[in-house]
């Protein structure tokens, strides 16, 4: 099922996004590494959903708008984005930084959101569960930390590094720092307002996550008691990559029930 490329000029920001499949709209918000290619899980989800995967402002092929200073700016941007695309009853899925964005969006307004899947999201801090210092890791160690099964890391590290990939990597890293350097990878005020999320939520985590340890899942479950918690065994920070089939099955079951 092919994805097509689109550009939306919104809030002064040329925003690139991919769109594929038919059905209920599913907005996937990527993490700190961006989403440079169409991944198998996107193809699989596109068999059941109309999948929309934007490059966030400041990431990938989208512009870097001057107004982008913190995660709240992106929350308001995405409320504009779903309105601009006239999306209703959206399944919102976000991984890592994207999961954080999903929560920031949902505490503000859920009127266009049907349900939310938070996939090892950043956004909150948990006592005793210190995230990896992603800004001190070398590029190779960053890739290795993402996965439990190092074959995924080897595969990714084997891809030749092009000048374009270096540029995109630096751009994504810059925006991630802007949004998440301090407070590191979370918003200390977010827990105060998580109770405002009034749609079904699932929390998905890899048990062996070495970027955001699974201990954070317990804290998030405490803050979102109505949420369904799903832990994938033998899985790192990117369940949608490392456990693609099980992940997609879970999303379908959760969002279509």
């Amino acid at each position, binding site marked *: 099922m092919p994805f097509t490329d689109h550009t939306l000029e919104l809030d002064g920001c040329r925003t690139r996004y991919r769109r594929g499949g038919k059905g209920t709209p599913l907005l996937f918000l990527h993490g700190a590494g961006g989403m440079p290619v169409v991944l198998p899980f996107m193809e699989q989800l596109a068999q059941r959903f109309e999948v929309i995967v934007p490059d966030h402002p400041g990431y990938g092929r989208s512009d870097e708008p001057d107004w982008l200073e913190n995660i709240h700016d992106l929350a308001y941007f995405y409320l504009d984005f779903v309105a601009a695309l006239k999306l209703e009853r959206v399944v919102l899925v976000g991984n890592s930084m994207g999961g954080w964005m999903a929560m920031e969006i949902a505490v503000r307004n859920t009127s266009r959101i049907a349900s939310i899947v938070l996939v090892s999201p950043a956004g909150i801090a948990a006592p005793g569960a210190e995230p990896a210092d992603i800004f001190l*890791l*070398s590029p190779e160690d960053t890739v290795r930390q993402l996965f439990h099964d190092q074959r995924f890391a080897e595969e990714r590290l084997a891809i030749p590094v092009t000048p374009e990939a270096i540029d995109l990597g630096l751009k994504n890293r810059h925006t991630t720092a802007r949004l998440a350097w301090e407070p590191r990878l979370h918003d200390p005020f977010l827990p105060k307002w998580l109770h405002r999320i009034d749609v079904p939520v699932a929390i998905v985590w890899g048990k062996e996550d070495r970027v955001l340890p699974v201990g954070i899942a317990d804290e998030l479950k405490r803050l979102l008691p109505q949420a369904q918690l799903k832990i994938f065994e033998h899985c790192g920070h990117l369940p949608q990559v490392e456990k693609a089939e099980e992940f997609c099955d879970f999303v379908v079951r959760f969002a279509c029930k």
Partner: protein
Amino acid sequence: MQIVLFHLMPYADLDLGEGRRNGTVWVTLPNRNFDPQKGHRLYNRYLDELEYGEELGFDVVAVNEHHQTAYGLMPSPIVTASALARRTQRVKIAILGSALPLRAHPMMVAEEHAMIDVISGGRLISGFVRGIGAEYHTFGVNPTFSHDRFHEAHDLIVRAWSEPGPFSFHGHHYRVRYVNLWPRPYQKPHPPIWIPSQGSKETIDWASHSDRRYTYLQTFSPVKVVQRYLKQYRDTCAGYGYACEDRQLGWAVPVYVGETDQSARAEAKQHFEAFRNVYVRMPLEMLLPPGYTSRESLKNVMKAKAQMFGDVTLEQALELGLFVCGSAETVYRAFEQYWKDMRFGNLLVMCQFGTLPAELTRANMERFARGVLPRLKALD
């Protein structure tokens, strides 16, 4: 030429093996490696050395700011500069510099510098820096706002020093209802401002602007790089429509003067190499966090990584002009030639580096002061 005695105050008692094993003495080297009793002796020794600089005829003594590192034990240069303000009479005192974006509020910097200027009777030279990349890791200050915070803090400080208060300041990062500095600085309109830098176009364009004309210091760089950036500064001044004065340029470099070239090298070698290969070292990700430099500069550093992050011997450092070492005659001749090429009005010599012990530091300072300093001052 104005000659500045510059000190980093490193933790010279460091177990170098520990520093090597940790990969860096910045950010992550456990502080059990700092022994407060040894620290006590080092601080007092280093302050003595700077005070001795006045007696030896240096024009300026200089301190700087670094955080959570064995590289330099001055998280607050305000403390050392304050001590010097009371213990010296004639020499100027340079803070090179205060790391503006790292400080919670620029008003504190404005106040503290003004205090030292008033206490010392107008002997303060103020330096402003952004702090090095590693310090954005230790402080948690967002490096992608580093330039913005620096410029805004600078504007607030200079206005607080020079404009009648009270007035209000409305910035993006700092907002103050009442800017009304007590004390106002002793010097009019304010202390001279120096900008130490590793070299960047953005910094040169800003510092050399005809509204500012700040003294630009190129620090610890191969001499070719020093030449390139000082020339760039002069060219930029010309582009702004004025001729750069020599006093606007400075070069900071470690120096060792021995009785002979051979003995100088033998005495300095292990200490310089410890400085360059243990104290300075850090991984790229620590040195240049996102936003600290432009992405273009970052890519250039990534390309030069092997060269920048590998070990350098004393011999290689001398060839690169990273270090000036030899008999008084050799050292004088080297600086005379460099001066003829670059016409920097300020030379900052670091007479203590790495593990260089007290006796060698004193001997180095004395030989420099006797055999090099008066001749350099006479250059014009």
